[in-house]
């Protein structure tokens, strides 16, 4: 396959950045999307040009490191698939493909297609955990968990933190990510003691990081490679309302 790529190039955070056009030839349909970029980079290096920086690591769809806007689609056209597992047979010969980084104030561009998603870590640090210092845990079977709850918690826990939800959201909101963790932990008995402080802490951290507000537009769940359902946001809302009602807005009081 021969393809025309239009790729966002940006030297650093201060650079303005622009789309640059490249041609790649002899691309095998069996290549993954990132392997296609590898091919381009090898050629750029030998042609004395700067290769395109992009994030990737496990290349099996679980680490959440890769994230590209491909023709306006977060992670590309195939649903339930990260960019690293997307294969070139999804494209046709001669196609023009636009590749851009995730765009959000909370995800500033570091270089080319690489962005800083540290704000996700901050949201987790603000409450996305269960306080259980090592060694303090009771016997695992002390608290049975109904299978349905465990399964539903797992569904939300499958989030890989890639940021596609933010990239696709018309509001630049990170609410699906936040809600996935809130939902996982609030469905489990172990998560109850911190249930309401958690949701307030995480939503505050989310807003502080500069993410937009959720308007239930639903783009996030469509592009989510792990299919985190939109109703997790309803669970977050319910916990949030309950938390503000219980404490007059002050968690823990």
């Amino acid at each position, binding site marked *: 396959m021969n393809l025309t790529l239009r790729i966002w190039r940006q030297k650093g955070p201060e650079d303005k950045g622009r789309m640059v056009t490249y041609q790649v030839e002899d691309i095998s349909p069996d290549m993954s999307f990132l392997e296609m970029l590898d091919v381009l980079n090898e050629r750029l290096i030998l042609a004395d040009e700067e290769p395109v920086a992009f994030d990737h690591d496990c290349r*099996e769809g679980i680490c959440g490191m890769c994230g590209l806007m491909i023709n306006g689609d977060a992670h590309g056209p195939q649903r339930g698939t990260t960019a690293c597992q997307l294969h070139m047979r999804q494209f046709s010969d001669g196609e023009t493909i636009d590749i851009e980084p995730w765009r959000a104030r909370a995800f500033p561009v570091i270089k080319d297609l690489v962005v800083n998603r540290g704000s996700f870590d901050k949201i987790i640090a603000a409450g996305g955990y269960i306080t259980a210092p090592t060694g303090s845990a009771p016997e695992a079977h002390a608290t049975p968990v109904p299978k349905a709850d465990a399964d539903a918690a797992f569904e939300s826990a499958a989030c890989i933190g890639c940021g596609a939800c933010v990239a696709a959201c018309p509001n630049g909101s990170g609410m699906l990510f936040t809600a996935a963790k809130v939902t996982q932990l609030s469905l489990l008995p172990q998560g109850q003691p911190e249930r309401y402080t958690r949701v307030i802490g995480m939503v505050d951290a989310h807003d502080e990081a500069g993410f937009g507000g959720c308007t239930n537009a639903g783009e996030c769940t469509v592009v989510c490679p792990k299919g985190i359902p939109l109703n997790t946001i309803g669970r977050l809302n319910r916990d949030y309302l309950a938390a503000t009602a219980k404490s007059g807005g002050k968690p823990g009081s």
Partner: protein
Amino acid sequence: MDLYTEGDPIADTKAPEGPIETRWERRRFSAKLVNPANRRKMTVIVVGTGLAGGSAAATLAEQGYRVKSYCYQDSPRRAHSIAAQGGINAAKNYRNDGDSIHRLFYDTVKGGDFRSRESNVHRLAEVSVNIIDQCVAQGVPFAREYGGLLDTRSFGGAQVQRTFYARGQTGQQLLLGAYQALERQIGLGNVEMNSRHEMLELVVVDGKARGIVVRDLVTGEISTEMADAVVLASGGYGNVFYLSTNAKGCNVTATWRAHRKGAYFANPCYTQIHPTCIPVSGDHQSKLTLMSESLRNDGRVWVPKAKGDDRAPRDIPEDERDYYLERIYPSFGNLVPRDIASRAAKNVCDEGRGVGPTKLGVYLDFADAINRLGRKAIEAKYGNLFEMYERITGEDPYEVPMRIYPAVHYTMGGLWVDYDLQSTIPGLFVIGEANFSDHGANRLGASALMQGLADGYFVLPATIANYLAAGPFEAVDASHPAAVEARRDVEDRITRLLAVDGDRTVDSFHRELGQIMWEHCGMERSEAGLRKAIDEIRALRDQFWQRVRVPGDGEGLNQSLEKAGRVADFFELAELMCVDALHREESCGGHFRAEHQTPDGEAQRDDDRFAYVAAWEYTGTGEPAVLHKEDLKFEYVHPTQRSYK
């Protein structure tokens, strides 16, 4: 020139003697403690944020130490532990099926082909039960039964159901549990987290590990970070083969730099090759994807009987197919252990009977299972795996048999550590896949997660206190001559890599190195092959330093530069792996020497000559390494020959 010399034997002096059941308890009691007020004055550096590093950093911070944590990924949540699928073993005996700490200990020593330390493995089995408690308390959504209790399943190498799991994403869920505990400590200000930072050198002051030199991958800034102790949890080195199931960024640099500074490297040749991976589709291949071993429960492995049979699989009649695992191993059939299945696949491909475009693949056929159980049942069991296969290969495994081939998956070798997980450099502790300690020559399925978390949550936090109790140590800062020198070494190396300005990319060298390693130090090794490999590696390493092209500069994000440094270290490790494989004139676990097999082609151990850990001391690049032997004593599990026929 000799490839190595032999030095004094080495011994683990930390494990207490006496009954194995109480060794860990006695060690914990004899270890010195650090009082809480003093903990706040001490800094511990933890490199890596996988199961071992993440859990260790969180636990040490909970205990009151000041922790500095480093990872090369953009977030500690992305370490490659996340990709583990199957599960985690624990001797809970919830099934009442005869499991016990002793049985887990026994299975692990046997599964490791009698090349691991009994004391360590027993401790691992003891601690395994605490891990499950800890993870459940953190909200890890393990699979449960309708009664609300934890579900378990069976896994290779065991006759009991002791594997806890969270669908096919156990590693992810366990890692997120550790990551959340770590983030909590970061939020509390107890851990200073440095993501997108790579450790490039160890700082040793007066014989003690006192710091590291790191490069900020975003700004390119090199800095020296000092501490009272350094913990390496930087994972395995499977990427020396270029193609492996490891993440692209996995590398040996942290442990190799420590090795160069005096830490011994143990059993580097022990690598685990996983039999069920999606085959290479072409030269562009950048990594290999594992398909869960559970597929072999229902799939039948075969190749055509005739060489070069190019017909489509469905056109090959039943009597022209060779179900070779069922033929050679009638009692275990398609369910033989990983190493055996891998080697058998290699053998049939070497005979010219491999399938697929590259002829390096065998069929894993579900037609019989679909006929017997119906498509629905197969879908329910393996639906997500079949989907993943189709996404990657474009073929529908319900219609066409899957093609699979073995791939490098895990490395049992690593830095040598004593019972306290301390390396031969005082103050340098090594945990998780980065050390060599618990799996011997072969790791059982679902044991890697167990070891990572055992080391990080329970073992290291107890043993490191014994070392730190002698502190706080004399304050040293980045201006200490040893620190300045380490930093200068790092800067010089970067300058050198950038200055070559040659005509080949880093990846092209890495790919070629991988081919040499896979060919000669992969599933089957021979003296002639290993000698050839050593020559080729040395020649290629020279080429690398003359012809590599690293674009850009050291300022700011430069992914080519990162790769170049890692590949340079892989070149040195590769040679040591081959030397280790060459010197070990026996076959055991993941190490199979063609010269040492039973008449029917099985691994032939030589317990009289090789029942030891090979701990290698570095003397210089291309210089003969020094071999230190740690004899292995088996008081509780007596070595036997494995047979699966």
